[in-house]
């Protein structure tokens, strides 16, 4: 009889969600039982059984091990909801959405961040933020630096692009029909940049907080 392996994605989910001390025994128990049930159940039934166990188990441990991710996601969602609410009060949210304004700030800021750091450090910074786990003060410093560079360069790019828009408006000062939309777009660029800076500030503070209990000797 050809034995199949447990579904890799379900295993990866459990690896991510389970507390470190339970990963080995719990994943081992699941694999042992998975191998046993293959003698009297179809391959598909075994996969469904594993997925069911993985999802139910993840549900049990998600809040325990992923609290940092939940709280960060909640705070960002709260910020987005409040911003949209304020936009609606100001006469409709649609006038606040402008893709070019976002493209002018976020991607160049990300490129600057990659230029002063490394792709590995950027990945590690987001990983620390979402997992709520940091191993050393060096990791804290490099992750905070990533969010500082991302947020600050985004803010400066926003300011720069806004000024650039004002220069363009100044050169067409006689055409009032152009100035209105151009002014709105230039201010939107600054608004987006400030939003990104705010989220990056919160992310950096979160990582600083996570690193508070770490000893300098762990560097």
């Amino acid at each position, binding site marked *: 009889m050809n034995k199949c392996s447990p579904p890799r994605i379900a295993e990866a989910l459990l690896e991510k969600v389970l507390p470190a001390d339970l990963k*080995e*025994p*719990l*994943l*081992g128990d699941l*694999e*042992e039982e998975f191998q046993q049930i293959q003698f009297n159940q179809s391959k598909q039934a075994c996969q469904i059984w594993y997925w069911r*166990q993985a999802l139910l*188990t993840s549900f*049990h441990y998600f809040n325990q091990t992923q609290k940092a991710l939940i709280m960060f996601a909640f705070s960002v969602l709260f910020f987005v909801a409040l911003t949209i609410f304020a936009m609606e009060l100001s006469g409709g949210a649609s006038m606040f959405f402008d893709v070019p304004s976002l493209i002018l700030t976020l991607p160049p800021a990300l490129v600057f961040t990659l230029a002063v750091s490394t792709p590995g450090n950027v990945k590690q910074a987001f990983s620390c933020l979402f997992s709520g786990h940091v191993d050393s003060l060096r990791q804290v410093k490099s992750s905070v630096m990533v969010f500082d560079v991302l947020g600050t360069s985004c803010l400066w790019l926003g300011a720069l692009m806004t000024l650039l828009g004002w220069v363009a408006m100044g050169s067409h000062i006689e055409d009032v029909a152009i100035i209105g939309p151009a002014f709105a777009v230039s201010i939107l660029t600054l608004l987006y940049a400030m939003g990104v800076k705010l989220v990056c500030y919160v992310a950096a503070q979160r990582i600083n907080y996570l690193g508070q209990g770490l000893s300098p000797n762990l560097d």
Partner: protein
Amino acid sequence: MAKSRFLGEFEQFVLLAILRLGEQAYGTTIRQILLDVIQRDVSIGALYTTLTRLEDKGLIRSAMGEATAERGGRAKKYFEITAEGKRALQETRQSLDAMWRDVKLSFVGVKQ
């Protein structure tokens, strides 16, 4: 009066399963005995949550065992009931027995 420690229903089942299994009490076997004896199909996550809680209370202790190929090279975590665990189980049983004494089953809707 000393504060007695009563156990929840599932905690009692898990402790009794560990007692029945003796030296072979680990996640898979505990889950299996719960299914075979009381037809309770609990998820492995729910079982480990209870096991962790019982260990935190000092009612059981655990030790890592051997890794086998059928477990993907992962080690087992064996559980053993402590003296305090046995005492808590005993107290809960005595309390339940005391409450059940003189209760006619007809009172709770069971025909005798």
